[in-house]
């Protein structure tokens, strides 16, 4: 009798979710309390991620970064305030573009430690000064990741002197100006070459590997990338951009650890860009488009995940929007922190509220094991 009821249940369920595992019907070994298998096409989600989000984001980055390379060349040829401003604008554009690829630390990006090579902050000003003076940069050394990338450019374009005129003077100095220009150029080219390497790997083989690995094991693409983006959200977006600067983990505010510390108004711009990119990824929204494909959100819809009577995907989106609203209403992060504003701590809490929904509710609905723990140090 019990078994009969179960079959009815499966039949009913199958009407709504199109399919259920044929294995469960045929082999007769499934227990009464076994899971109802939901059909969701992970492969379609992987294709959407790769073809409509990740690869377009890389392509866009490379295209726009050409403008940085060109602006840097113009600045190098003619050190002027105008050319500095042009280079700075191109840099900020690309820094925002970077927020759309930073979370995809998988495959070639992971192999190349891309994120740490491109965006380790705070940058080491003293080591940069030494590198400029010595003329040797060692950009392949792990210990020099805090002397390059976007944060080093932030310092070189915004923080190396107080005013634009004084910054120009640094690069025009008859003794050391050329050394500074050479270093800046090397930083620019290092970013270009590292991101290009990863982008090329995506379009020349890794895309197919990624999409083909469409299973549901710990090493499947979905499980891995979901882990990677949650890790990104928790450690880099939440902690790196806000938590550490406000002193959430130490009790001591550290505004010098802000992203874009040398151009403080940009910290907020970059955080919002990363939050947008994260939410677009969650919803499967095509890069710089409005069309949507299969995504974590649509996966949750298929799973009919409900928390406290509400659809989980709606809860996550609503909370991401709460967080965005909180940060949009803030002033310059550096000033908020230096004035011990409670608002930025409150905004942090809004970011944090998303974490358990992702890391507990979403992954358990999808049967994905979280493969990272809070850093053990050693």
């Amino acid at each position, binding site marked *: 009798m019990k078994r009969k009821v179960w079959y009815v249940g499966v039949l009913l369920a199958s009407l709504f979710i199109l399919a259920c595992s044929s294995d469960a019907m045929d082999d007769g070994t499934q227990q009464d309390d076994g899971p109802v298998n939901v059909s969701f096409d992970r492969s379609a989600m992987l294709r959407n991620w790769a073809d409509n989000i990740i690869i377009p984001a890389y392509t866009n980055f490379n295209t726009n970064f050409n403008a940085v390379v060109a602006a840097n060349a113009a600045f190098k040829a003619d050190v002027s305030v105008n050319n500095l401003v042009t280079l700075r604008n191109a840099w900020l554009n690309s820094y925002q573009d970077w927020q759309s690829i930073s979370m995809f630390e998988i495959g070639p990006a*992971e*192999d190349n*430690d891309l994120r*740490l090579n491109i965006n*380790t902050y705070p940058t080491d000003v003293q080591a940069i000064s030494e590198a400029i003076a010595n003329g040797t940069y*060692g950009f*392949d*050394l*792990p*210990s020099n*990741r805090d002397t390059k990338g976007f944060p080093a450019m932030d310092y070189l374009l915004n923080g190396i002197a107080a005013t634009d005129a004084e910054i120009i003077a640094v690069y025009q100095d008859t003794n050391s100006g050329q050394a500074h220009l050479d270093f800046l150029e090397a930083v620019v080219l290092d970013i270009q070459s590292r991101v290009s390497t990863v982008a090329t790997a995506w379009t020349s083989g890794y895309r197919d590997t990624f999409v083909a690995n469409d299973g549901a094991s710990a*090493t499947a693409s979905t499980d891995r990338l979901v882990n990677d983006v949650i890790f990104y959200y928790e450690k880099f977006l939440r902690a790196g951009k806000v938590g550490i600067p406000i002193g959430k983990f130490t009790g001591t505010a550290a505004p010098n650890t802000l992203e874009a510390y040398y151009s403080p108004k940009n910290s907020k711009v970059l955080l919002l860009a990363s939050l947008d990119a994260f939410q677009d990824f969650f919803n499967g929204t095509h890069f710089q488009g409005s069309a949507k494909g299969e995504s974590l959100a649509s996966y949750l819809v298929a799973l009919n995940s409900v928390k406290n009577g509400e659809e989980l995907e709606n809860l996550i989106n609503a909370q991401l929007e709460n967080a965005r609203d909180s940060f949009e209403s803030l002033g310059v992060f550096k000033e908020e922190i230096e004035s011990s504003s409670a608002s930025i701590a409150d905004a942090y809490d809004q970011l944090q509220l998303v974490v358990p929904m992702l890391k507990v509710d979403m992954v358990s609905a999808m049967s994905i094991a979280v493969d990272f723990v809070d*850093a*053990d140090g*050693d």
Partner: protein
Amino acid sequence: MLKKIVPFACVIVGLTSCSLDDDGDDVIIDEIQIENPSSYTFERDGASTVSFSGQTTRLRMGDELLAAMMDDSSTLEELGAMYAHEEGAADFSDADLNASDKNLLTKTAASVDYFSTNSAEQIAIRADFNSWLQTQVEEVFPNWNTVATAGVAGQLADGASTRYVNAQGLEMNQVFNKSLIGALMVDQAINNYLSPDVLDAGDNPDNNGAGITEEGKNYTTMEHKWDEAYGYVFGQNADAANPNADLGADNFLNKYLGRVEGDADFAGIADDIFQAFKLGRAAIVAKQYTVRDQQAVIIQDKISTIIGVRAIYYLQQAKLELEKESPSYGTVFHDLSEGYGFIYSLQFTRDTSKEAPYFTKNQVDALLAQLLGDGDNGLWDVTPETLQDISETIANAFSFSLEAAAN
């Protein structure tokens, strides 16, 4: 005969059932009461009798030496002098340490139980520590700004951290640090100061029985010896009387007591060790040496467990990373460098059923040779199978399982 058994039985019941809780209930043995305080607080004439400043000093010397090993401008002479400090020499940044007549070298592999008649191994072990300093200065420092590759010393990325390895992939600072936990902190605590040969040496029982304190001190020698063992475990905790509030207060045994406490399979071990230290010390005050020695056995067991668990933990963590599609060698080598030191430390553990280490020096040397022996380039060539094999060998010697230790 019966009279002897009865008090013994009382203690056993007291220890294994409910009479000893955090409030430090007193233990009653044959009309004699052991006043077991709720914290590690012992007084005579209103003044504390607890003292382990020498242990705290050595822990701090260790901290400075480890930091200097990571400064590539340190010379071998400087590092060697920090290890074998002489009173008054300006080896440290801390003037108190410079003024001290204590050092790390003379307490390395120096316990009464294991090394009083074992000079050959003592000399070999001290030579190992000196060789690690030498390798750091002569092999790793020159390649400080080189990317490490198989057979070439240099630096590797481990997540956001940078690791500096020798040609075999070993971090000398980690090897030195984790090996010192065994050779100094563990060996001194469990094989020296908790040993009846030390506690009961000379006139100690008579003096302790009569309440005769050391000249100019407020403690009997036996009390002090016990406290010195305590100091190697808890010497840098903020509140010496209630040390478990800030586990992980040093870079040595306390840190890893904290880590093992954090593993659900071993939760409670920190309190077990603390309670045993406290009751044992109270038993010395009450002159109840059977109880004292029972507590010593508990401490010896549990501290040995810490070493065994962490050795397996790092091997298994490294194995997980190594089995990935494109493993991060910086991460693998960092785990294995810590694991190397904990394996080295196994020779200082104590299987209390045998009054001997879980692994002899020869056995430890064989395990370490196995770890580095899969190819010409040491850790660069190590296989997951080898890591599993060593893990199983270690787990088989202890009473806990490999799985319990692995996470």
